[in-house]
C-alpha cells in the first residue's frame, strides 16, 4: 500500500507539472464574441475578403429590465486564402471569434463564379462551422447584406436561417453542397439573396431570396427563378408548401399545395436515358373568388387538373433550364447508378452531356383534401 501511494504521488506530481498547459483551451465567455454570419467576397486585386457579423453583448441593466435589443456589427479583413482573411479580422478584434453559432454563410457572386471549391473546402475543414449552416449567394455587396437589420429578427443571420425553413424556399446546407461536390460534374444549387426597396418606403430595404444559382464544376453557370426552383425541390423531395393560383371559369382559386412526394424510376432503353417521375400531392383550397360548389366532383377534378398541369410545367421548365446549363441538380446520376451501375460508370466523365439529353416524363397526381368549411 505504501509503495502504491508513492508511485501515485509521483505520477500525479508529474501531471501537475504538465498541467500548466491545461488553461490553453479555456475560452472564458467574456473573451469570445459570437459570430452570427460570415460573408466571403473576392476583391478586384484577387484577394479574398471575409466579413463577419458579430453579436455585441449588451450589459444587463441593474434593475432587471428585459427587452434589450442586441446590436450587431460588421468587421472585414482580407487575405490570399480565406483563413488568412479571417486571421486578419481576428487581429482587429479584442476578443476571440467564436463561430460555433454561425447561422449563414454568404458568398458573393464574384467569388461564386470561380472559387467555390476553396469555399467549400475551408468550411468543411474548419471544425467550428456546423454542417447545417445555410449557404447563400448574393449579387449585392456583402456588407449591405450583413449590416441589414431586419424588423423581426435580431440580425440578418437569424433572418436568413429562418427564411430557409419556411414556405418552400430552396435551401442548401453545407452538407448538401459538400455531398454534391463529390458527384460527377459537381452540381449544386444555392439560393441568391438580394435587397430591394419596399413599396411603402423607398428608403427601407427588404431582404429576400429572389433567384437560385446553379453550379457546375464549382463554377456558377446560371440562375433559376424562384418559381422554377420548386422543380428541384419537388424532385428531391424537399418541398414543403406553397400557394398556387389557378383560374377556372373566370374565378380565381388559391390553393395551398403540400405533402408533395416524388417517385423516380430510371430506365435505359436502346441508349436512351429516360426518367419517369411520379409526383403526388395534396392541397387545401384557401380562396375562391366566385361562389361555386366546390364539393362537386367535377369542379374538383377540373381544379386538380389545372394544378397538375401547372406543376408539370414548372418541373419541366426547371429540367429544361438545368439541362441547358448542363447541371444535374436533380441528382439523376445517383438514381441511375443505383439501377444501372456499370453503364453509369462508363459515362461518368461525360455525365454533363448525357444529362442534357435525358428524357424526363412527369406524371402528376393531385388531390384536394379540404375545401374549407364555407359552403354555398
Amino acid at each position, binding site marked *: 500500500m505504501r509503495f502504491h501511494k508513492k508511485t501515485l504521488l509521483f505520477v500525479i506530481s508529474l501531471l501537475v507539472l504538465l498541467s500548466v498547459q491545461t488553461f490553453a483551451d479555456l475560452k472564458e465567455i467574456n473573451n469570445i464574441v459570437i459570430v452570427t454570419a460570415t460573408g466571403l467576397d473576392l476583391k478586384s486585386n484577387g484577394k479574398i475578403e471575409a466579413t463577419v457579423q458579430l453579436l455585441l453583448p449588451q450589459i444587463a441593466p441593474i434593475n432587471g429590465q428585459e427587452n434589450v435589443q442586441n446590436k450587431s456589427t460588421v468587421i472585414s479583413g482580407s487575405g490570399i486564402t480565406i483563413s488568412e482573411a479571417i486571421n486578419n479580422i481576428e487581429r482587429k478584434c479584442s476578443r476571440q471569434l467564436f463561430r460555433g453559432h454561425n447561422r449563414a454563410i454568404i458568398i458573393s457572386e464574384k467569388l461564386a463564379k470561380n472559387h467555390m471549391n476553396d469555399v467549400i473546402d475551408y468550411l468543411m475543414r474548419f471544425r467550428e462551422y456546423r*454542417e447545417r449552416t445555410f449557404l447563400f449567394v448574393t449579387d449585392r455587396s456583402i456588407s449591405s447584406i450583413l449590416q441589414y437589420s431586419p424588423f423581426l429578427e435580431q440580425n440578418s443571420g437569424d433572418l436568413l436561417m429562418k427564411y430557409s425553413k419556411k414556405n418552400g424556399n430552396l435551401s442548401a446546407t453545407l452538407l448538401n453542397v459538400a455531398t454534391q461536390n463529390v458527384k460527377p460534374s459537381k452540381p449544386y444549387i444555392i439560393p441568391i439573396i438580394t435587397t430591394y426597396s419596399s413599396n411603402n418606403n423607398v428608403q427601407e430595404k427588404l431582404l429576400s431570396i429572389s433567384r437560385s444559382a446553379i453550379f457546375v464544376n464549382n463554377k456558377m453557370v446560371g440562375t433559376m427563378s424562384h418559381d422554377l426552383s420548386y422543380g428541384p425541390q419537388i424532385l428531391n423531395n424537399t418541398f414543403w408548401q406553397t400557394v398556387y393560383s389557378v383560374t377556372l371559369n373566370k374565378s380565381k382559386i388559391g390553393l395551398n399545395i403540400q405533402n408533395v412526394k416524388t417517385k423516380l424510376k430510371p430506365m435505359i432503353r436502346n441508349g436512351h436515358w429516360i426518367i419517369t417521375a411520379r409526383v403526388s400531392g395534396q392541397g387545401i383550397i384557401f380562396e375562391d373568388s366566385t361562389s361555386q360548389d366546390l364539393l362537386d366532383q367535377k369542379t374538383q377534378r377540373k381544379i386538380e387538373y389545372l394544378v397538375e398541369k401547372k406543376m408539370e410545367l414548372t418541373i419541366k421548365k426547371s429540367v429544361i433550364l438545368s439541362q441547358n446549363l448542363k447541371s444535374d441538380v436533380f441528382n439523376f446520376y445517383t438514381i441511375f447508378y443505383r439501377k444501372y451501375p456499370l453503364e453509369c460508370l462508363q459515362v461518368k466523365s461525360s455525365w454533363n452531356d448525357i444529362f442534357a439529353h435525358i428524357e424526363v416524363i412527369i406524371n402528376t397526381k393531385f388531390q384536394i383534401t379540404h375545401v374549407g368549411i364555407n359552403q354555398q
Partner: protein
Amino acid sequence: MNRKEIISVNQLLTIFYISIVSTGLITLPHPMYLKAQQNMWISIIMSSTMGFLAVFICYFFKKNFPDKNFNQIIYLAVGNRIGYLINCIIFILYSFDMIYFLKEYELYLTDLFYQFMSPSLIIGLMLLVSMYAVVSGLEVIARCAQIIWPTTIILTLGIFVLLLPDIDFKNMFPIFEYGFGQPIKASFIAMAWFSELFWMIFFVQDISESAKKLKVMGFIYVFIIMISLFLFFITVLGVLGNYTGHTLYPVSLAERYIQMGTFIERTSVFFMAIWVLGVFIKIASLLFILTRCFCEVLHASSIGLISSVLCVVYFILSLILIKSTSSLFQVGFPLFLIVTYVANFGIFTMIFCITLFKKRTKIV
C-alpha cells in the same frame, strides 16, 4: 497473480462489446468505405465470422483447460522455451496495439475538441485512471463495464434515432456492382476488430460459469456487436452518402448534423464524453492483459509496480512515436492491421491447432 478474480460471462462479454464498438466507430468507416464504398454494411456482416471463430476457440480452451492461465496453455502446447518466446512476442505486439489505441483516442480529441490541450495530459489522464482500475483488479473493471454499457447503447441508438429523418436508406444500394472482391477485402479490415474477442482467452481462467454458457452468450454478443456497428454504418451512409470517403471521421461528421426539434442540436460534445467512457474500458482491459503478460515474462507478482512501470513506458512511447494524424493513418493503421492479425488471429489459431492436434493424438 496471487489473487483469484471471479467474473461472470456477461461481464466479460460486456467489456468486449464496449471496447470493440467504441474504437470501431471511430476508425472503421473511413478505410472500409475506401475499399467497399456503399457496400461496407455487407462487409461488417461478413466480418462477424471472425468473432464467431474467436468465441469458438475460447470455448474450446475453456472446456479443456478450465483453470489454466493462458500462458500455461502455451507452455503445454509448445513447450517452455518456445512458449516463453511466444509470450514475449505477444507482449510486444500488444504494446504496439496499446500505443495505437492511445494515439488514436488522443488525436481524435485534439483534432475535434481540444485543439490546444497538450497530448501528454490527455494520454496521461487516461493511463492514470486505467492504472487505478488495473490495480483494483479485474472484477472492478468488469463492474465498471457493466455500469457503462448503457451509455454505449445510448451512443448507438441515440445517433441512429436522432438522424433518422435525414438518413436516406437508398444510399446503401447498389450492392456488389464491382463484384464480390471489394467487400470481402474490406471485411478483412473489420475482422481485425472482431479478432479482439480472442483476448477472452486471457480471462478464461476467471470465468465462474460453464463453457457452454460462454459459447452461447458469446455468439449472442458477437451478433449484438455486429448490429451496433451496422447501425453506425447505415447512419453514416445514409447521411453522408458518397462523401464518407472524404472525411477521416465519418461518424463524427454525421453526428454534427443532428438537429431535432429546436434544441437537440450541437450534441457532439455529449457523445464525445460518452465515447471516452468506452475508450477507458478498452485501455483498462488491455492494460490488464499487458500487466499479466509482463508479469509472466518477468516471473514477477506485484501488479502495482508492474502496471505503473508499464504506464510510464507507454506514456513516453506514445508521445515519441506516431506524432501526427497523417502518420496514424498512413503508417500506424496498416501496421496495426498486420500486428493484430499476427497476434490475435495467427498466434491463437496456431496454438488452437497444436492443442487440437495434441488432444487428438492424446499426447496432452
